[in-house]
């Protein structure tokens, strides 16, 4: 086998492996999508049916029973609100740690990440009681605060990695021109990091959109986002797969479309720390 042939074979094998992984990851979403067009009986049939007469009944039932727009609006407000708030806190934090590191900066970063290792349920009761006492139960503000705290460590870490890759010489040049640290951050670092900040923000939005644990525990009728709407379609006594799939499809649709448009930034955001 010549070198060119070997290369070709390698390309084919890598392509095949990538397609297999991509299809494996995509399959559950595809199955959810087609199940949403089945009747409950078709949804449970063994062997599973791939060809059937599609019905829109599940979607109309979901529309009839749940206020989809209200849930979607709650998801939009909490995801974007929490992301903006988290970025406002994380940008100065990451900036100071990247450009003015102290002796304990690494420890602080590790400590921040360690908070993500605590299972959320471990702090459920204190957070529930605090939310009750501050009137934040079943409120969008309550969820925004929780989502912000939840994603802050990841956002700080991502921005920190991004800022660290910026050439220090540019900042030195700005300093020579008389820029203060504040000017450096606003006028030099931020314009250079728009891509990194955008991809960090996108990831945060996706994480907030998909969050279910706190949404289910801290909301009732007013602030419940789409994840709470999906959960309401699971039934202890009765078939529900088709209706649940329809609710999930409706809940996923906005973020999938959003992700589709922003996939370039997302991929960049997820890989920019990996090539050092």
């Amino acid at each position, binding site marked *: 086998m010549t070198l060119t042939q070997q290369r070709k074979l390698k390309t084919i094998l890598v392509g095949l492996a990538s397609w297999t992984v991509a299809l494996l990851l995509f399959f559950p979403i595809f199955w959810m999508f087609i199940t949403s067009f089945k*009747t*409950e*009986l078709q949804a*449970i*049939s*063994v062997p599973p049916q791939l060809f059937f007469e599609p019905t829109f009944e599940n979607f109309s039932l979901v529309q*009839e*029973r*749940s206020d989809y727009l209200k849930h979607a609006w709650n998801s939009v407000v909490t995801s974007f609100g929490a992301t903006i708030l988290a970025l406002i806190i994380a940008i100065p934090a990451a900036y100071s740690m990247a450009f003015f590191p102290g002796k304990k900066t690494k420890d602080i970063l590790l400590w921040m990440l360690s908070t993500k290792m605590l299972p959320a349920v471990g702090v459920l*009761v204190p957070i*529930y*009681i605090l939310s*009750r006492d501050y009137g934040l*139960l*079943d409120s969008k503000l309550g969820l925004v605060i929780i989502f912000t705290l939840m994603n802050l460590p990841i956002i700080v870490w991502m921005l920190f990695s991004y800022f660290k890759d910026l050439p220090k010489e540019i900042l030195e040049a700005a300093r020579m021109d008389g820029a203060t640290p504040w000017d450096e951050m606003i006028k030099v670092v931020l314009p250079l990091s728009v891509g990194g900040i955008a991809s960090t923000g996108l990831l945060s939005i996706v994480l907030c959109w998909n969050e279910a644990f706190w949404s*289910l*525990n801290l909301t*009732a*009728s007013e602030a*419940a986002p789409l994840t*709470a709407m999906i*959960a*309401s*379609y*699971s*039934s*202890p*006594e*009765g*078939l*529900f797969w088709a209706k649940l799939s329809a609710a999930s499809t409706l809940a996923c649709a906005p973020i999938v479309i959003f992700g589709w448009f922003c996939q370039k930034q997302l991929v960049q955001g997820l890989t920019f720390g990996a090539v050092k």
Partner: protein
Amino acid sequence: MKSLTKTAIACAVSLAAFNAFAETQITIATVNNGHMIEMQKLSPEFEKQYPDIKLKWVTLEEGVLRQNVTQDIANGSGLYDVMTIGMYEAPIWGERGWLEPVDTSGDYDVEDILPSIRGGLSYNGTMYAAPFYGESSMVMYRKDLAEKAGVTIGDRDSWEHIRDAAAAMNDPENGVYGICLRGKAGWGDNMAFLSAMANSFGARWFDMDWKPQLTSDEWKNAVNFYVDLLNKYGPPGASGNSFNENLALFNEGKCGMWIDATIAASFVTDPKQSKVADKVGFAQSPYAVTEKGANWLWSWALGIPAATKNAEAAQTFVRWATSKEYIKLVADHNGWGAVPTGTRTSTYENPEFTKAAVFADAELKAINSANPNDSTLQPSPYVGVQFAAIPEFQAIGTTTGQMVSGALAGSLPVDKALESANRSADRQMRQAGYY
């Protein structure tokens, strides 16, 4: 002066008008069961009848509902004004003063509610939740398969007879399994079924000193019989099946028999979701050494948390949703076959209902034969047929369920599973200060 008086009168009138139209909004937490969703659909009728009360609905998955309402009620958050709770929670929460007693005065006709259901939702004679629908357990079987196999299935057959019938109907090559039973771990899943089965083998959860009895011969006999039966004549992967999985199997025509909640009868006879709708027969649950506690008793009920600020409006709603008039309203909209059952004697006395629901007689017989206050052969200190109404039971029942599910899957022997479960239960009861 005149204009001042006029202004004052105008203000008073508009204030009175505002008060007259002041709305009370109540939030209702519920599970996604067919009857509950129907109640949500019919709620505009309630708002028409009581224009000063507006209803808000929160539908949750059963586990999440339990967790949320427990948090809400234990912390006095007052997020919900009406909550859907089960027969397990009602007496425990009633005893702690977490629930408002149900207002049964006037034309509510509390005497019409089935006595066993009323008893299960009460503490010290006071009803703390109003039953929305009730259920027991019974045998659902395929008449065609039984006939083909030459077996008969009747009320209160012995477990041996059921095993023989399962063996005769079992035809795995053609995708038909003799019997489908719950195997998924959970106090409300496999242990609901197995507790009732163990009762009929003469077992009990606790003796009169609250000591767990899971290592008794009665428990061992029951669980060994169950594991053997399901392994020989049950569907593959039975340790992962609960109500919905077995419902799917039965409706697909893959089970000869299924012993589960009576509410399933309306699903398996519904041609829209069952391939075997016209071939199903019903019989009372089997027994081994006693008929006591052989079939369970459960009710989904509406309770009013003591922390609510809208108790009066909540009472009005609960009385409406659990009244005879509501049952009639459902019948007017969807027919008598779709009404919530297992709550009121008058439903079963209605000839239109008995005509529409082929399972009515079997269901009433099953519910009436279950007595939560006397469900074990040997005396026991707890209330409940398939559970013990004490706060510790959820954890004890679920741990035992996990052990038994493991034994069913073949990962440990039955005796070992019961010993571990008993040790864990003993530790929890000791920690809780029972002895």
